[in-house]
């Protein structure tokens, strides 16, 4: 692939666009609000990739390299830089203890079953294939957009884009533990969103 790009193979570039283009737009959008600026960030990334392909050393993967370029450009253009802005809300601070499920859903210390569920967790009756409907995906997409900034970034990179924990920690400059705390809160929230939506029922 790298060699094909160096040789100016247009089909190879198109393959790359198809493989990464959508993801690049979504990742850029984590840093930049304006749709037009998102497109610019992505375009600038492609230019940088083409310019730099001759110098690219295959020690890291092409994907990792491409996205590190993208994130650097996006951060520079972004309205909020994740490094310089302190955690904007307590929900985003991995150091703050926070329950992912409301405490009142569990029995108290004076009961026969301290810490156990107070009532059964309502089962989801819609089978998974039908949970993947446009409706639910739209809801999840909108809910992710509303998450606190770092939770949104972590869950997007981990669960939407499928990046590894290590990649996410590198790009977001988080410790593995903090990354997992943020991921945990985001996932708990999204599960709750589905539960409350009624879309998990037939």
């Amino acid at each position, binding site marked *: 692939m790298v060699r094909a790009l160096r040789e100016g193979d247009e089909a190879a570039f198109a393959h790359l666009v198809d493989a990464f283009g959508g993801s690049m737009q979504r990742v850029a959008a984590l840093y930049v609000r304006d749709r037009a600026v998102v497109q610019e960030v992505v375009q600038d990334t492609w230019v940088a990739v083409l310019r730099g392909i001759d110098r690219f050393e295959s020690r890291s993967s092409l994907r990792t390299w491409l996205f590190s370029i993208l994130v650097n450009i996006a951060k520079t253009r972004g309205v909020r830089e994740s490094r310089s802005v302190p955690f904007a809300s307590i929900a985003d601070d991995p150091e703050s203890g926070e329950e992912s499920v409301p405490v009142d859903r569990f029995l108290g210390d004076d009961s026969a079953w301290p810490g156990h569920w107070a009532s059964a967790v309502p089962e989801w009756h819609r089978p998974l294939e039908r949970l993947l409907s446009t409706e639910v995906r739209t809801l999840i997409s909108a809910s992710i957009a509303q998450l606190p900034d770092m939770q949104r970034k972590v869950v997007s990179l981990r669960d939407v884009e499928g990046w590894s924990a290590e990649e996410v920690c590198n790009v977001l400059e988080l410790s593995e533990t903090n990354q*997992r705390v943020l991921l945990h809160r985001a996932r708990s929230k999204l*599960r709750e969103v589905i539960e409350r939506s009624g879309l998990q029922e037939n």
Partner: protein
Amino acid sequence: MSSTEITCKELVELVTDYLDHRMPAEQRLRFEEHIAFCSPCAVYLEQIRQTITVTGALREDDLDQQSRDAMLNVFKDFRR
């Protein structure tokens, strides 16, 4: 055993560690031991898994044609 038992309230905070395979062996044993008899927790864990699957489905949205063309043009312009 009772003193080191995991409660449901504790378990829901551990699901991400569990799914990331980032749990000490002993804790993982206690986690699974709890799931083995606790139906609500088993349901909760499965719902988290399904949530992750739905989230992952967002990746499948195709790149729109206009954006795709714009990206391909970068290459064409570059080659000139």
